[in-house]
């Protein structure tokens, strides 16, 4: 069963539609399905996550079946199929970052935010999760925050605290 929020109709901004068309123009005639991944990124950047309604609208825009969008959105780890906090702190949890303390950083975030991995804080501002290698192994521990995927490197507890405070003030 889909939750109610997943069936809420969504509206795409004119800017987003314009961006869609620019993306589609990058591929040869008839190969517009290639635009799917970048379009889903743009959609998620605007809406925060990909609801079924949002994915259906993307499918309609590309004139492909909704299942072709769902199967892609569920395959790739960057697409959120559930609502998230406004800021999603994604901490690299793979080997090289763990050698330099990534697990401590994740524990610290869990304590600071008071929510478990994948959960959203009551004020709707934050969620966090461990993700696999972010290709920044020499600057670990690292975390990223979408939709611009800004990187925060060489983290320690103090830097994480400052980051969370800064985001709260925004």
């Amino acid at each position: 069963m889909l939750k109610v929020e997943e069936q809420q109709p969504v509206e795409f901004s004119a800017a987003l539609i314009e961006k869609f068309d620019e993306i589609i123009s990058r591929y040869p005639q008839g190969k517009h399905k290639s635009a799917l991944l970048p379009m889903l990124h743009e959609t998620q950047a605007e809406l925060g996550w990909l609801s079924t309604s949002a994915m259906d609208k993307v499918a309609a825009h590309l004139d492909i079946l909704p299942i072709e969008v769902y199967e892609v959105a569920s395959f790739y780890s960057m697409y959120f199929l559930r609502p998230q906090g406004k800021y999603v702190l994604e901490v690299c949890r793979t080997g090289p970052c763990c050698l330099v303390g990534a697990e401590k950083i994740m524990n610290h975030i869990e304590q600071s935010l008071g929510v478990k991995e994948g959960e959203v804080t009551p004020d709707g501002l934050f969620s966090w999760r461990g993700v696999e290698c972010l290709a920044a192994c020499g600057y670990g521990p690292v975390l990223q925050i979408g939709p611009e995927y800004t990187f925060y490197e060489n983290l320690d507890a103090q830097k994480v605290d400052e980051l969370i405070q800064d985001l709260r003030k925004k």
Partner: protein
Amino acid sequence: MARKLLLEHINVPGIHTLDVYRQKGGYRAVEKALKTLSPDEVVEEVKKSGLRGRGGAGFPTGMKWSFLAKPEGVARYLVCNADESEPGTFKDRYLMTHIPHALIEGMIVASFALGANTSYIYVRGEMMPQIRILERAIAEAKNAGFLGKNILGSGYDLELYVQPGGGAYICGEETALLESLEGKRGNPRIKPPFPAIAGLYGCPTVVNNVESIAAVVPIINDGGDEYAKVGIGRSTGTKLISASGNLVRPGVYEIELGLPVEEFIYSDEYCGGIANGKRLKATVAGGSSVPVLPANLTLKLANGEPRLMSYESLSEGGFATGTMMGSGGFIAFDEDQCIVRNTWNFARFYHHESCGQCSPCREGTGWMEKVLHRLEYGHGKMSDIDLLVDVSKKIEGNTICPLGDAAAWPVASAIRHFRDEFEWHVKEPVKSLDTNYGLANYAEPIAKAEVTTGN
């Protein structure tokens, strides 16, 4: 200082802009190739250079190019693989962040050589800042007439686009990358047909790593023969090494192939030794999927000669006593690191990243993760160790793409070299939760690294 071919100007302020890049000799290779060379002559220079694919497999780039089918009236594509996701590897990010025009210049020359009029750079989605950097650089290059119609009056047309991925390690495999670029799930294709015959949209396609494409620039500028003079034996040229883990100075270094591993780890020109005055326990020399080696075998071959940073020397001794160059993701473990825990961590990674297409990989990676988890958390049995070896052997070689092998090798090699530590986790389930096995406890103790470099 060692010779730098890719990162020579990396510290020049503003080198990410077209103007500064050109002041430092940028886009000479485009002018030379398009104005004075034929596409086949460019391919010939790359063949002469001996350049080997920098993404991990080490296949000769020029040869890969020469396999490209050229049927009349069918489009050809060049796709750059910038889906850098192999744990321990972050060189392509570095190159794209600081000197994006090196990649774009290489893309233009390579596309010209292959006769591609539309080329894509597939960048992993998490590298959104790098995608913006590349898009800006492409716009600059286009304004300056290096992209678009009739480039430099040569009659050659090229459009270059950046494609974001969606966060899937498997898309670094070239056929999965092409599936993803077509807007599908990243399931690797069965080969043959190889992309050189039927790749993107069923058309002949070459997929090359970022560093391989950037290396085409010095090859064309100086000539393939000059490039081949750098390096050692069949490992020609320079290589970007991403160094991470417990090092004094982790980061990206351009080395001449053939540099002794010991010098790379301990010299102040490179990593500056092991952090916090600790001793080296083990290394993973080429990204997480290559076999882990204990310190003694990292620094020296089985016969006692120094091991070098080259394709041949790193794989000397096969998997019994050697490893692989891979993508150049060099991870160092100090004496306080637990091999069992790290092996579990890598196994979890491969389980998470398996696309699920082939049963041995989909199921086997999950089993390995589970068994390693119970060994790490004090619930392991002695028979688990051989079970892991058995599972890894049944994955290896039995899958469509090399992710299965990549998942199997770290587990098999960790048990091969550190079996004592796995057994200790079974015998001392409680103690192993918060204590390190140590270097000296092995049946054949891992020697303390003796540093002989002058630095």
